[in-house]
């Protein structure tokens, strides 16, 4: 059964179309990766699913019910982990989770039990009486998650839950996502870290300019761009390169520069490596190393959108 159905949804802010006639389904039990650059329409879509924004047209259903006609039902079944940490610094850890869970209608011992479980789940059960202001970024992120799961939602939307935290906390959160999924929760996961999405998501949608431009499993997405190969060329630091010249080389689909590392995505059927190297030699660029790589999700994204996920 589909836990989420988005059908021909459009959202405009004045003349700007943030989400353009989008249709999407998420099945129960999935970890659904939602990828897009900033301003692609990701957050607007998430806000519409969680009932914070109303679509101009189209319909959104949670467990088969329209989210506006059955607003309370929909909201009770959704848990939001917002990108920004949304907790009260003047409430203790326990009070924060209790307050938000209480808004979902939980009372008395049931409320206490579920709050305890949520804190246990995120590894903050020993921090009941602590105030979040004394927490590290990772701990705050975990509390942010606890506030979203204490009412046991069926669909959890996680918007960049690992931004700005240490690797240890990131691993903890990623494992938590997997564990929640094993417990029966459906997860919609957005991240700028492609490797995270690649690691945990069973299905992925790529959104660009308010439209879903690709959707499927990792393998299905990679299959879209199997005709692409990546070449990584390490050059001498501080060298200046005219990327337009490289892009003009036959078969080149995209060129991206990260410090002194240049990534050239080309059509596999075209043998253009010599031309690329020649181009660099002509420009008197010193090549340090060269490596060819098979496509990954990052390549898929770059190929489809023409931009890196972390480009702003």
């Amino acid at each position, binding site marked *: 059964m589909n836990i989420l159905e988005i059908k021909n949804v459009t959202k405009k802010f004045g003349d700007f179309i943030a989400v353009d006639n989008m249709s999407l389904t998420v099945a129960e039990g999935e970890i659904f990766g939602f990828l897009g650059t900033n301003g692609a329409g990701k957050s607007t879509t998430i806000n519409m699913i969680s009932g914070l924004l109303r679509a101009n047209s189209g319909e959104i259903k949670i467990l088969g019910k329209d989210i506006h006609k059955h607003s309370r039902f929909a909201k009770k079944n959704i848990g939001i982990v917002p990108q920004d940490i949304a*907790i009260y610094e*003047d409430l203790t850890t326990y009070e924060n989770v209790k307050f938000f869970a209480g808004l979902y209608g939980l009372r008395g011992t049931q409320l206490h039990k579920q709050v305890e479980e949520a804190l246990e789940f995120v590894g903050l059960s020993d921090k009941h009486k602590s105030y979040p202001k004394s927490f590290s970024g990772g701990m705050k992120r975990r509390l942010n998650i606890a*506030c979203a799961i204490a009412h046991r939602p069926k669909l959890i939307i996680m918007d960049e839950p690992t931004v700005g935290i240490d690797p240890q906390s990131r691993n903890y959160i990623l494992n938590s996502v997997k564990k929640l999924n094993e417990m029966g929760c459906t997860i919609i996961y957005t991240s700028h870290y492609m490797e995270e999405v690649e690691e945990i998501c069973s299905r992925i949608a790529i959104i660009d300019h308010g439209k879903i431009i690709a959707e499927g499993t990792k393998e299905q997405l990679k299959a879209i761009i199997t005709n692409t190969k990546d070449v990584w060329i390490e050059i001498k630091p501080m060298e200046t390169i005219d990327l337009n010249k490289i892009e003009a080389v036959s078969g080149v689909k995209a060129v991206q520069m990260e410090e002194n590392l240049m990534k050239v995505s080309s059509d596999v059927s075209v043998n253009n490596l010599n031309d690329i190297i020649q181009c660099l030699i002509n420009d008197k660029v010193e090549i340090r190393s060269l490596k060819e790589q098979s496509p990954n999700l990052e390549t898929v994204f770059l190929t489809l959108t023409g931009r890196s996920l972390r480009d702003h």
Partner: protein
Amino acid sequence: MNIIRIAFKEIKSDFRDSRTLVFMLAFPIVLMLILGTALSNTFNTSTSVGEIHVLYKDQTSGEFSGYVRQFMKEAKKSALHFKRISGQLDAKKEVQQGYYDGYMTITNEQIQLYVNDTNSIKGSIIQGMTAAFADQYNIATAVAKVKPEQVQLLMNNKVQNDYIKETSLHSKRQPGAMDYYAIAMTTMIALYGALPASYLIRGERTRKTADRLLAAPVHKFEIFIGKIFGNMVVNFLCVAIVITFSKFVFKAYWGHHLALVYLVVFTEVLFAISLGLGISYISRTEGAARTILMVVIQLASFLGGAYFKIEATGPMEKFITNLSPLTWVNTALTKIIYLNDVSAGSFAMLLNVGLAALFLLIAGTAFTRQEGL
């Protein structure tokens, strides 16, 4: 239930915020103490006159001489001391140089009084008492012509000993400095409640908790009402603590209608919160809202006599001071406390509630129209 939950969270957060406690409790109490003590003389309506010394030359004889002695004896009870002049003393010069407050020559036909104008209060007292005695004697003389047997009764038994009678146009009790500033600081701090109120809903957006609240199965208006309700409880409790503290520690007088005083202040708290919310929705940024409110509150405090008493006499002055919410609230409270005028609160309460409704309408309309909080 969600309204209560949100209100309770608001109360808990506010009372944990040391800035709230300092601003809403310590600030008015300290100001009350400083202004009430420093400006105590400005509010002191009584003047200490001290003892009055009068030189006299008694040239009376017969029955009248006895009445004069009796008058002097009675006057001594009011700290008016008569001293018979000795032969070589220049009485007028003594008065002129301030050694004595008056000089009186008494004959059977008339009393002549010489006082020093530089101390008009003492002079007036001597003059008043002497005039009262003379009037009494004149009455006795008139009575003697008709019923001589009643004269003795009039002069001996009905000796006038209430020469000075206090009469006030207003109430018997007038506010002292501490009484005045207890009211002024309480109502001023209630108005300052507009500042945190301007951050009430905006704060959820700044804190990023707005989306989480709205994602919960809670109606927008439950959040709106819950937050206002919580803030009202906090502000009213703070104001009530300030009133209680001033009453029992500073011994400020709050009259016999304390419940009505609380009710008037409660409507002011409602007005202040609504003002803060209304302004926060009218202005674009948090900074703009705060600036507008600070200007409004400072002007209202100044015109409402929060820092020093303003006596508006002209119609324009009265009009301007009446624009301050503190003027109408302070006037109402003063009348309730010092004149026992329980109806005086109605106008202030009506204005507070009416304006609160207006600002809440502005905030509520903007709140409904926009997506999110």
